[in-house]
């Protein structure tokens, strides 16, 4: 196997994807949305809210960041990876190069992951920093909170991205299906008894937060796995979904316009 050639191709496709996701209007919209937690913490600080500490930070970040911003940003970007190339008729340029379809999917997914983390990670770090600074604490005082949210952001981006990418190669209108899964299923699944919550990404993200952060508002949250197991499950599911997406893409035909 020509590793140098493969690396070059991976670099080019990843770079092309990064540029595509970070330089179009979509990047402005998702970037602004990703800033919401930061804007909120800055507002709380400016309003001199007395109870503003890392507990309040977590109370805001779990429903707002994990269950809205993260899902929306990953949905918009992951569904664009293949589907927009099909809709824009630019896919033939990539498909007529000596690069396999599964490799193309994998490289695009890597580009996606870098792009969404560039958008999502800095606001989380700065919002955490603002919270600590407001309480007159050093940046390193509650590092478990920061690590917990960074882990949830990275693993959530990977898992949601893989899920939405898979949906995008299965259906023509992936946004609608993604919205349904991201904002309906992921929201209600916690209230379903039994092991059903294990069929959601948010369950494992909350498990990680509960296990990693010493003082957290998830004390009553039902979970029987550790953060390590939850992280392992999310990584495994992400890899499996990317492989499935690659397999489906490998069998796909691209008609665009029948002439």
């Amino acid at each position, binding site marked *: 196997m*020509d590793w*140098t*050639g*493969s690396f*070059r*191709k991976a*670099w*080019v*496709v990843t770079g*092309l994807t990064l*540029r*595509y996701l970070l*330089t*179009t209007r979509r990047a402005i919209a998702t970037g602004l949305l990703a800033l919401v937690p930061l804007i909120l913490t800055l507002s709380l600080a400016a309003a001199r809210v007395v109870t503003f500490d890392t507990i309040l930070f977590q109370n805001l970040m779990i429903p707002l960041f994990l269950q809205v911003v993260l899902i929306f940003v990953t949905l918009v970007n992951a569904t664009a990876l293949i589907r927009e190339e099909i809709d*824009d*008729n*630019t896919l*033939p*340029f*990539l*498909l*007529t*190069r*000596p*690069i*396999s*379809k599964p490799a193309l999917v994998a490289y695009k997914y890597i580009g996606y992951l870098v792009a969404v983390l560039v958008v999502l990670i800095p606001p989380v770090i700065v919002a955490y920093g603002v919270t600590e600074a407001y309480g007159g604490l050093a940046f390193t005082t509650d590092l478990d909170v920061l690590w917990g949210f960074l882990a949830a952001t990275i693993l959530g981006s990977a898992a949601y991205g893989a899920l939405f990418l898979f949906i995008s190669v299965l259906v023509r209108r992936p946004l609608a299906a993604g919205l349904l899964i991201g904002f309906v299923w992921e929201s209600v699944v916690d209230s379903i008894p039994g092991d059903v919550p294990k069929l959601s990404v948010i369950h494992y993200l909350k498990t990680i937060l509960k296990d990693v952060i010493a003082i957290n508002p998830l004390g009553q949250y039902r979970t029987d796995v550790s953060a390590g197991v939850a992280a392992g499950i999310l990584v495994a599911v992400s890899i499996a979904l990317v492989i499935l997406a690659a397999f489906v893409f*490998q069998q796909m*035909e*691209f*008609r*665009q*316009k*029948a*002439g």
Partner: protein
Amino acid sequence: MNGVVEAAGVSKWYGEVLGLNAFTASFGKGITGLVGPNGAGKSTLFKLLIGQLHSDQGKITLLGENPWNNVPLKRRLGYCPEQNQLYGWLTGQQFVETLLRLDGMPATNARNEATAALKVVGLSDAAQRPTRGYSRGMRQRAKLAQALAHDPEILILDEPLSGADPAARVHILQTISDFAKDGGHVLMSTHVLYEIERVTNNIVLIHNGKAIAAGNIHAIRALIDTHPHAVRIETSKPRQLAQALARMEHVVSFEFPAADTLLVRTRKPDAFYKELPQIVSDTRLDVRGLESPDDSLDAVFRYLVG
């Protein structure tokens, strides 16, 4: 089976619609023109050849190999799609360079080869401009540049002259001709027979997904000359252009379907295409694009297939 392209009883359905209907043909070396009206099956055939579709029935080979999911074969082909969308945020240079690097080419080589390819198609001056600002003719040339930059054995060009202005047409046809002279094979589709005549005598007529005739262009042209050929010209001054074109004896009629469009019907398309650039140059009128609506060709096909 030793042609550049071999198709034996190839059929392709889009649901209930038949894209190709037991298509059988063998395309030899050099330039082959695939001529047929829109919807005849040209793009479907090309998509089968580049491995974007797979056939529902029959067998198709390109350079002796099955194209479906055949990654090594892609090194040997250059494809120019019909659609004009490019990665608009990339410059012409970046566009060609990026695609070359997907062939595994090192960055420096890709840069040099991209520069050379853009020069061949006459786009050097616009190489550093984002492609979103390119005219249709420039887009056609950029697509051609990326198709030939990696020195493929065969070029598959889907309507490469569609919408191109007269200058771009000359450049594109010259590039295709030079590529074939250097030993390359070209498969080029069009719904305008007269475009292909300038670069090859070897054509295949396709209609309703079937190859209905193949061989020398002149015999087929004789049939077609009896049908007026329509040319749609995009210009800011259609009436002034009509006045200038009226001196051509073979022009049958003019229509003005839009404020910036002139539709000309001529009985001698070859003479028309030959004389047009000079008239445009003499009158200094702005011609942004040329297109041939395929109604005239469609009439010929109806005549040929009875």
